[in-house]
């Protein structure tokens, strides 16, 4: 079971990882987009880490809501808003519980994916973070080692979509150029999973 204490530790790891990765994420986002993905993630992760003490031990839902709000308050870019949306969806599902059972992870990631799809009006296969989440939700279903399964799924999805053209956001305008390049949001999700799972 993942407790709020685990969530706090994960938040601190995420912050540390994003301090390191921010430039690389800006760089890749800058190739076809506006180059702010690292800024988004560094700011958001810092804000979540600053608020770990506001996460109540006995309510995973409220703890996740704290994380979501940290993102909405600090970043309004597409990615930050989608992450907040996903966290809110998970928060809603875990409200009042003191943790997340391993075999509930798949359902929560799927819930986040669905809400983010609704919010961003993108479809699966559009080469976005949604494809990472979709792959993860499927891989987590019945996984023995959820962390490993999620990470591998995120990595595989990134590779699987590499050669499709971008269809969403700024990168869409460069659809042709985007073939053969990783989607920045998918890459970021791989790094997020790596950080929060401590792999």
């Amino acid at each position, binding site marked *: 079971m993942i407790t709020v204490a685990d969530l706090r530790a994960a938040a601190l790891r995420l912050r540390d990882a994003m301090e390191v990765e921010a430039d690389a994420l800006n760089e890749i986002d800058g190739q076809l987009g*506006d*180059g*702010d993905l690292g*800024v988004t993630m560094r700011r958001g992760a810092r804000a979540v880490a600053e608020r770990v003490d506001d996460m109540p031990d006995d309510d995973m839902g409220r703890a996740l809501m704290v994380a979501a709000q940290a993102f*909405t*308050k*600090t*970043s*309004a*870019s*597409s990615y930050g*808003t*989608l992450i*907040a*949306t996903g966290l809110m969806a998970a928060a809603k599902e875990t409200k009042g519980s003191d943790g997340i059972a391993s075999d509930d992870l798949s359902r929560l990631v799927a819930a986040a994916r669905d809400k983010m799809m609704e*919010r*961003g009006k993108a479809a699966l296969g559009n080469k976005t973070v949604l494809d990472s989440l979709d792959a993860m939700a499927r891989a987590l279903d019945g996984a023995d080692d959820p962390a490993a399964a999620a990470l591998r799924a995120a990595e595989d999805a990134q590779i699987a979509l590499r050669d499709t053209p971008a269809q*969403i*956001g*700024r990168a*869409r*305008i*460069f659809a042709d150029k985007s073939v053969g390049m990783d989607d920045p949001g998918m890459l970021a999700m791989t790094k997020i999973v790596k950080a929060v799972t401590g792999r």
Partner: protein
Amino acid sequence: MKKILNDPEKYVDEMLDGLCAAHPQFYRLVGDDKRAVARATPGKSGKVGIVSGGGSGHLPVFTGYVGPGLLDACAIGDVFNSPTTDQMADAIRAADQGAGVLRLYGNYGGDVMNFDMAGDLVEMDDITCTTVLLADDVASAPPAEAEKRRGVAGMVYAFKMAGAAAEAGLDLDGVTRVAQRAADACRSVGAALSSCTVPQAGKPTFDIAEDEMEMGMGIHGEPGVWRDKLRPADAIAEEMMDRLLADMPVDAGDRVSILVNSLGATPPEELYILYRIVKKRLDAAGAEIVMPLVGRYATSMEMAGVSFTLCKLDDELEGFLKAPCDCAFWTVT
């Protein structure tokens, strides 16, 4: 970076402080983090509120157009970045006079998601919201995907017409309908000659050679349809008019307005050189030009370049275009 600023992180907050200090008769900062601007004197009770928002760096868009006959409030993000959900909710609350609020803004991913979330938030305050998205840039997607187009200077017409409709006492549905019709009536295209610098980035958004221009470039430096040697003014104007008229043909007897807009550094002298061709083309089509706008109405800080926005009028839209409005950047009497 040829910019006059202190801390890049404070660029927007200091700009807003100065804006409200200079024009207290028009603007008032609201919200927790003071990232929403509302009219100094709120619209009268029962008037439909109109809210906009988006990234900074486009003055007078968006914030500048808060005022009588225009917007009621506006949420302001960092340069070229969406405001947050909370900031948008602050703006919506400030705009609400009990008759609901129209969200009227440009079609950019982050803005859309955040305005949607802000709508969810203010639902809890019983504020009804509608949405009209500006998607007037013909260079950003073909007609078949017109709903994917980004919003550029066309929003100036939409703000003006929707603002006048709200002032005239139309209800939320009515104002929303006018705004949608204004949005549908506009087509824009831009051409950039040089980049601007986002303060937090500290270097030009894109590189472009000293003798080059880019046709169809977006106001954040989004790529256009071609990049080539700088052409003569008349050739640029002809091509821009070609693109607009191909997308929205104009017939003899049509009444239209046209906005010849500087993206920032391009001086009015050069807008007027372009205007000769704009007028020639519309005259040739047999259209009547109503209240042409020439100047800096929607900018990208110090970017050199221009955009044209063609707006097809009917009696209703023309009436709202000519109705009075007032703000620090635009007065119609």
